[in-house]
């Protein structure tokens, strides 16, 4: 909490009236919000509400058609230089891990640092090994992704994103593709990351994690932010009908 208070008026991401269409389908209908340096935000909402699309616009995996996004002082436009700058500052973890299957776990992690940050191979490997240590799978460095479990793959994917030394980490349902017994090991890593002061935007249905770690919860429905509040208010005193319904439905499970 301290991290957030210190940095209260230091937004690292600013979105202003963000709109996005897939052909005629209006997916994001005017998102205006900002995220502070060091903030841990959880994004939740029903399926198809535009959560993934929203965080994917933040590193230009999706293009927005109206409004502005400013990440760490750089505006996201068609300018490739800006896009590349922002992608180096923003790490992303996907639901399906998306590790590179033809590379070893170690090579998955060193590729970006070598090719983009221009580290030497040995520097990059040193970084990668210490990150693998941090996510607790140093012994899997020389295996291929297909040879390790889903939970381990997701931790390699987190290490891969961290190797670029990002200022912001985006997580798109990082535990949804995992068997229940592997969810904890990934959440543990994310918890540790949250405590280290990383700015994190996490799309997830793990409400326990949200309550424990988040500074703020954003509830999406039909392409809009319906409600945003600290977890205590969000869970115990939701304002909006749709939020109440969503909470009662998810907490039943």
């Amino acid at each position, binding site marked *: 909490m301290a991290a957030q208070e210190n940095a209260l008026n230091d937004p690292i991401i600013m979105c202003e009236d963000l709109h996005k269409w897939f052909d005629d389908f209006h997916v994001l209908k005017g998102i205006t919000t900002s995220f502070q340096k060091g903030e841990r935000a959880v994004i939740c909402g029903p399926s198809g509400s535009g959560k993934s699309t929203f965080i994917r616009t933040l590193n230009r*995996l999706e293009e927005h058609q109206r409004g502005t996004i400013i990440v760490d002082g750089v505006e996201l436009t068609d300018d*490739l230089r800006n896009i590349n700058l922002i992608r*180096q500052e923003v790490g992303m973890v996907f639901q399906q891990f998306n590790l*590179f*299957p033809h590379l070893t776990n170690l090579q998955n992690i060193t590729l970006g640092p070598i*090719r*983009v940050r221009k580290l030497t191979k040995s520097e990059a490997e040193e970084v990668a090994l210490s990150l693998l240590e941090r996510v607790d799978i140093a012994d899997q460095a020389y295996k*291929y*992704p297909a*040879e390790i479990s889903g939970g381990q793959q997701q931790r390699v994917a987190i290490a891969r994103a961290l190797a670029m030394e990002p200022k912001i980490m985006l997580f798109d349902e990082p535990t949804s593709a995992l068997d229940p017994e592997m969810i904890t090991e990934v959440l543990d890593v994310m918890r540790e990351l949250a405590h280290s002061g990383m700015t994190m935007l996490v799309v997830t249905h793990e409400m326990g994690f949200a309550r424990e770690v988040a500074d703020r919860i954003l509830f999406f429905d039909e392409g809009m932010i319906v409600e945003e509040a600290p977890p205590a208010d969000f869970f115990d005193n939701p304002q909006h009908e749709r939020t109440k319904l969503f909470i009662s439905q998810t907490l039943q499970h």
Partner: protein
Amino acid sequence: MEEQELTQEIKPPANTKGLGRWLKDNLFNTWYNTLLTCLALVFLFFALKGFLTWAFTEAEWDVIPANFRLFMVGSYPQEQIWRVWNAIYILSVLMGLSAGLWGGLVLRFAVALSGVWFISALLPVELSTRGWCLGAIAMIAVSFFLGRGRTSLRPWILGGWILSFPVIMVVLRGFGENGVLTSNWGGLLLTLILAVVGIVVSFPLGVFLALCRQSNLPAIRWVSTTYIETVRGVPLITILFMGNVLIPIFMPGLDINQVLRMMIGITFFSGAYMAENVRGGLQGIPRGQHEAAQAVGLNYVQTTLFIVLPQALRSVIPAIVGQFIALFKDTSLVSIIGLIDLLGVAKSVIANPDWLGLQAEVYLFAAVIYFVFCYAMSYASQDIETDLGVGKH
């Protein structure tokens, strides 16, 4: 007690079976399979008996040694034959070095090649040829030991292979009147040159066309698609005829010789098919791979080089090698416009009044040569697939 037994390591059951067991499992496992096996054996016996009787009593194999030089190099002049050997020596050195550096597949090919030279040296050939053959073995062996373990040389050797290509062309051609006109190149030599040029150039061309066809820019996509579909809609033989006739009309000033025209035709034709094979691989790459690469900050070129192509090409190795094999055999079509490649030599030998009626012997010999090279490619492809762990990770 019991716990200890549980934690004891249990070995997997041995899966080596004796020959008898294998026969029983695979050929005689049911009554109808037994029947089929017996029928097949009877058929094989008669077919082989006929063939072997012919091969050992009736066939006149004299035709092969008598025309051996024609089969190998066509009408390449005898007094310039050292050029061919020099080319072979350049390749032998590279092969030996590579065998030392990489081992594995290259080493096996180097050993096989040395075997071929050794057997050739034992045959009743001229003394000079025998010398050249043994020299080739020596080249391979010496460079093998020179290359062994020097991993830092690898990039240089790769560069050497690429450079060897134009160098060998120059060595074979020589300069001006003192050299050997390409119209005298023939036999297996010509077949190999056409095939190697076709393969080496059409592969990058195909990759490039496939990437263009996937491009976000409509103009590039359109040009590439039009090219691919046009070329695939025309038989190779037509393209070769057109190349022969049209290139001189379009570029009247340039004196592009017939061999080069055929190289261009074969390469353009094969490139279009290669593009479609590669595109198949590109389409198999999930979107998540592109996205993960972008999220890490790789640009388009880096994503293509390090993420997309390695995965795409790996998954289409069988199709690509199939295309190489087809190309190798298709080079025989150049005999139709008057070049004397391996098949062209075969035809001219048969037409020679001295050797009338020996079609079977001559064509069988040509077939065996084609087979050896195609099988080598197929073998290499399987080996490379295993090496890369295709389908495993």
